[in-house]
């Protein structure tokens, strides 16, 4: 509980200071939060269930493309129906994961890694090749963010607060999930699946449900991602995007949820902020990765000894 209080405190301070930050910094903060949601969804799989997914960008992509297509082709999702798109995005992410899960959940370890990678690339292939729907390599340019109830999300600060709200909601939802008996069974599967099976758990189903839920949160992040960038492009779905998210979780500390946010913060800060200051930012990022893996196997969160999740 203590750690949650700290997290909320930090987010609260950031929220208070945000109006005084420069416009670019606010955009980066929103980036961190959206990627934080994706990272938490990966953490549910990697940290709690022991499934290293290398295809999480696929669900982000599904949510993002859905948002962009609805907005540009049908004009849906630019007013109150933004909330409908949020629901649809989550549903689409979950549905895609439900389909992919049929193939992926059979495997574990490196094989799971490879299968999720391959399935993720299928989504990329669709995005890249299905020109009439996705705009191919050009992607889809959005025409402005939604506005409803006097809230203009086109204003970056307003949008940042909305993303923050979604992040906190997602955090609590996932926190509830991992604290529930279902969450405990996932940890059991991570520690020793065979024993769980002998105890009478349908471990396949548990893993499958976790996979689908992770997909739903990926889809949610996708909706926000599309509006954040104003463009959806196949490179959002490409392998490096998935790898980044996985690294964020490893960096922040798997099995902590909040670690994903910290990892996202470090990566985005180093790549998008430091990169604008010095040209050798890649060495810094690489060094951070290597040092984390060598000396902090439980990630940055491991530094705050708060007991095991």
């Amino acid at each position, binding site marked *: 509980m203590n750690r949650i209080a700290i997290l909320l405190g930090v987010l609260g301070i950031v929220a208070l200071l945000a109006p005084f930050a420069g416009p670019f910094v606010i955009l980066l903060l929103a980036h961190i939060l959206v990627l934080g949601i994706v990272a938490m969804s990966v953490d549910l799989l990697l940290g709690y269930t022991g499934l290293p997914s290398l295809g999480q960008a696929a669900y982000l992509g599904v949510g993002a493309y859905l948002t962009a297509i609805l907005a540009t082709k049908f004009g849906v999702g630019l007013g109150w129906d933004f909330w409908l798109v949020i629901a649809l995005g989550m549903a689409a992410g979950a549905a895609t994961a439900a389909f992919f899960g049929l193939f992926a959940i059979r495997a574990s370890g490196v094989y799971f890694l490879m299968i999720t990678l391959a399935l993720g690339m299928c989504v990329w292939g669709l995005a890249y090749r299905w020109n009439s729907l996705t705009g191919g390599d*050009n992607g889809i340019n959005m025409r402005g963010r939604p506005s409803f109830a006097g809230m203009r999300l086109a204003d970056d600060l307003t949008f940042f607060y909305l993303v923050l709200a979604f992040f906190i909601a997602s955090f609590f939802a996932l926190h509830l999930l991992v604290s529930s008996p279902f969450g405990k069974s996932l940890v059991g599967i991570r520690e020793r699946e065979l024993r769980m099976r002998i105890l009478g758990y349908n471990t396949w189903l548990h893993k499958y449900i976790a996979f689908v839920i992770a997909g739903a949160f990926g889809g949610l992040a996708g909706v926000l991602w599309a509006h954040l960038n104003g463009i959806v492009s196949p*490179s959002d779905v490409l392998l490096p995007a998935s790898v980044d998210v996985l690294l964020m979780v490893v960096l922040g500390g798997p099995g902590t949820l909040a670690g994903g946010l910290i990892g996202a913060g470090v990566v985005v800060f180093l790549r998008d902020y430091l990169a604008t200051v010095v040209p050798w930012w890649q060495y810094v990022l690489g060094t951070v990765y290597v040092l984390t893996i060598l000396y902090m196997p439980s990630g940055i969160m491991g530094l705050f000894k708060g007991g095991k999740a």
Partner: protein
Amino acid sequence: MNRKVFTAIAALALSTGTSAQELKIGFLAPMTGIFAQIGKDMENGFQMYLDEQKGNFAGAKVTFIVEDEEGKPPVGVRKAEKLARQDNVQMLVGGLLASTGYAIAPVSTRLKTVYVLSIAAADDLTQRDLKEYPYIVRTSWSSSQPHHPLGKWACENGYKRVVTVGADYAFGHEVAGGFQKAFEDCGGRVIQKIWPPLGTKDFGPYIPTIKRDADAVFTVMVGPMALQFPKQMQEAGIKTPLIGGGTSYDEFVLPSMGDEVLGHVSALQYSAALDTPKNREFVRKYREKYGKVPSYYSESNYTTAQMIHEVMKQTKGRWPGPEKFIAAMTQLKLEAVRGPVRFDDMRNPIQNIYIKKVEKKRMFGYEKDELWNTVIQTYPDVSQFWTYGKDAFLKQPVYSRDFPPCKYCN
């Protein structure tokens, strides 16, 4: 403490006092990833002009900020936002891929910042989508622009049946589409269209499917693809002549190519082998400074810098605001390195298009035999609409995988 505050205020006052005579240019090019070297060529071109002017455009001190767009459109958008909102640049320049151009153009509209497309060639930015982007101007070319004349040239030089092999993305579609349109309008026939993905490294699966009764193969290759395809064609023993889109044989890839490309023909608005005093001088200086022959990526950005300078001369170094800048820029008539350049009313250059043949020879007094894109024919003052006229041209859809349709396939 008080003194510190005072100096800070003084510094602030000074900096705002001189800001009218400062020009901040945000430059977007890939600095990492597979297109990093092309990005370097782009930056070098611009930097060389800046250095020649000692960083001073008609009294305005130029601050040149380069950001890495990684060849990915969303990153390009992010960096454009950073340049416009954190660094407060007056204009954005660059963007390599057509898709990056499409992505940054809306940012320029949203933030009311000038965006000079110094490379990104996506046709529709200065065609059907132009009305959405009041702050863009293009200084390079539209994808199909050089390939209309090339289509005509191919048809007039005895090619009747052609197979096209093009990278499968908007740029590839537009280049091949422009070629096909002009080629077929003059009586030629495109009998097959093959679309390998952008970045294909092995053409093994595609080469055997090329129809053997073709008179020529027209290619649209980008970056490393350009090196691979002619090599594999030669290894497969196929003697069909190759002609190519501008990027299949530009000076960025040419030095890495071998004798297998001798005699291949391509078209572009620039060739390093252009035998004019201006270009001779440009090639000499560029080569001295950077140790390589300038590619069109370098020339285009050099010329872009020159154009910006010309506008600043008119305003005596004062930033005129985005609307007036765009208006002044599109009125320019310039003797550029590539030849005479002016703009059409859709803010795309009207310029010479050079039909070029790869030859091995000595040029400009260099000692070694090297590959050069010898100009074999010049089409003067080519606009993006070729001979079709603006209105008629804009009525047809943008070139795509399926337009123009392949009437003579099968």
